[in-house]
């Protein structure tokens, strides 16, 4: 295993410390239990947005803490959901009296740990709501699964709900908007290579030199189908098709598009994918009105990409465009 780390057990703590040292103007880091909070939290009268999940998806979630996005992030061990303690202490540290919204990626572990945290906080009189993100169209028969996974859509939910909260919206309102984003975003991903969880020390799966995995999540787990490597344009079509269809996007509609790298993909390749995505959407008469191309929700050093589309309307676009200032996402300020 080749990684720029010290001790396997210290990886998440040290990376979180590094984030805090690099952005003291934006975030404050707490280690026991581990959470990243807005430097100026609690913001009185503002709904507090808290997310979290396993580590290894950086910049998600710690990189999205700051003005106009999250109030706190709770990084679990690598690919392991955080424990309730983290959310409980984070919520106590950042809530501003207007309630807390948990943004939870739909994984059994995340759901249960956030649920426990919510129960504990409610018992202490802090109002907590939860919004699930479950945007991965690679999970087809959600009846026969733990439901769709939460993947790239999370970035959209955090940005847009974050803007609403920053603007002073009520808990009801922020929850409504977060749900609307969650319902209107879909994603699908693929991998050229696997990745290595530090504590395990070897790749989660092995792929032949001419193989790829289609329909992966973000935990280095094998995808739904393994197939022979294809040109980027074909791969793009394989990812974009199910996303467009599942959203039921029609000609004349507008989307915000994200071409996301899994952590080890050169930016050059992501732009090659974006090029084809733009062509596919253009052919269907769908307009990309905003976009992100880069590493936004990753799987350690995995090579591969995911495509996310959010059906956009005036309200969501206005909130998307609102200023944001976090370690990983910044505009308008």
């Amino acid at each position: 295993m080749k990684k720029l780390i010290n001790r396997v057990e210290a990886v998440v703590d040290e990376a979180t410390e590094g984030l805090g040292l690099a952005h003291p103007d934006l975030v404050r880091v707490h280690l026991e239990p581990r959470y990243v909070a807005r430097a100026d939290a609690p913001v009185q009268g503002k709904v507090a947005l808290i997310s979290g999940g396993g580590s290894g998806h950086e910049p998600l979630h710690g990189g999205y803490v700051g003005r106009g996005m999250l109030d706190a992030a709770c990084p679990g061990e690598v690919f392991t959901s955080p424990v309730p303690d983290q959310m409980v202490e984070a919520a106590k540290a950042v809530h501003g009296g207007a309630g807390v919204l948990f943004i939870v990626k739909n994984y059994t572990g995340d759901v249960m740990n956030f649920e426990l945290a919510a129960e504990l906080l409610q018992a202490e009189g802090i109002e907590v709501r939860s919004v699930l993100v479950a945007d991965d169209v690679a999970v087809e028969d959600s009846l026969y699964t733990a439901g769709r996974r939460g993947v790239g859509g999370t970035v959209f939910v955090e940005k847009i709900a974050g803007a609403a909260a920053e603007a002073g919206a009520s808990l009801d309102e922020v929850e409504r908007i977060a749900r609307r984003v969650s319902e209107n975003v879909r994603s699908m991903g693929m991998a050229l290579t696997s990745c290595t969880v530090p504590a395990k020390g070897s790749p989660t799966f092995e792929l032949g030199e001419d193989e790829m995995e289609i329909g992966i999540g973000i935990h280095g787990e094998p995808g739904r189908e393994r197939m022979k490597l294809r040109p980027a344009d074909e791969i793009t079509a394989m990812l974009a098709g199910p996303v467009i269809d599942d959203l039921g996007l029609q000609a004349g509609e507008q989307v915000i598009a994200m071409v996301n790298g899994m952590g080890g993909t050169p930016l050059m390749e992501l732009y090659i994918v974006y090029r084809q995505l733009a062509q596919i959407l253009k052919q269907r008469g769908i307009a990309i009105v905003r976009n992100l191309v880069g590493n936004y929700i990753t799987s350690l050093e995995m090579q591969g990409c995911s495509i996310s589309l959010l059906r956009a309307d005036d309200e969501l676009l206005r909130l998307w465009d609102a200023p944001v200032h976090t370690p990983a996402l910044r505009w308008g300020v």
Partner: protein
Amino acid sequence: MGGAGEVAGRGVDAGRVRAFIRRFAQLVAEHKDELTALDAAIGDADHGTNLDRGLQAALERLPGEGASPADLLKAVAMALIAKVGGASGPLYGTAFLRAATAAGGKAVLEPTDVAALFRAALAGIQERGKAAVGEKTMIDALAPAVEALEAALGRGADLAEALAEAARAAREGSDRTIPLVATKGRASYLGERSRGHRDPGSLSAALMMQAAAETLAGGKAP
């Protein structure tokens, strides 16, 4: 039976509960890489690491002399909830919490108490995880184990024998997860591709029952 049965006659006191917890932690530590490798095949390669981290934390926090069975079980529950994360943290945490509640204030547990305790643990996991038998989870090991335990006691077996049967049933239940397609947890995302692999949580659950069989009734299980 025989010697083991006699020792078991003493009843399950805090010492035995402590031995059970220690043995469970030890078995998980020994099988850590195997559990993680199983999770790599159909999950995210962390089950062994997760559970081991939690049980080691539990050992550190175990209350000392004078703690009741419930105190010990509750300490484990808290450590697992605080340290494991993932799916197995809340699931095993809830299991131990319910077991603690079932143990109540008793200093010594009778065989039927032990059965009730495992039944409560199973119910807790089912409530939290909303999975049924056949979904390729730890339930597939635990549910038959609890049934075997109750059935054996019901037909008059002593605790050692009953727990040994429960451990066997858990192991067989785990074996039966191999051909299943997962419909709960992370492995469910693999659909058909989850077939042919043992569910990691079912193995850790079988290890828990093995630990119970080796400790709760006294000496080594037969």
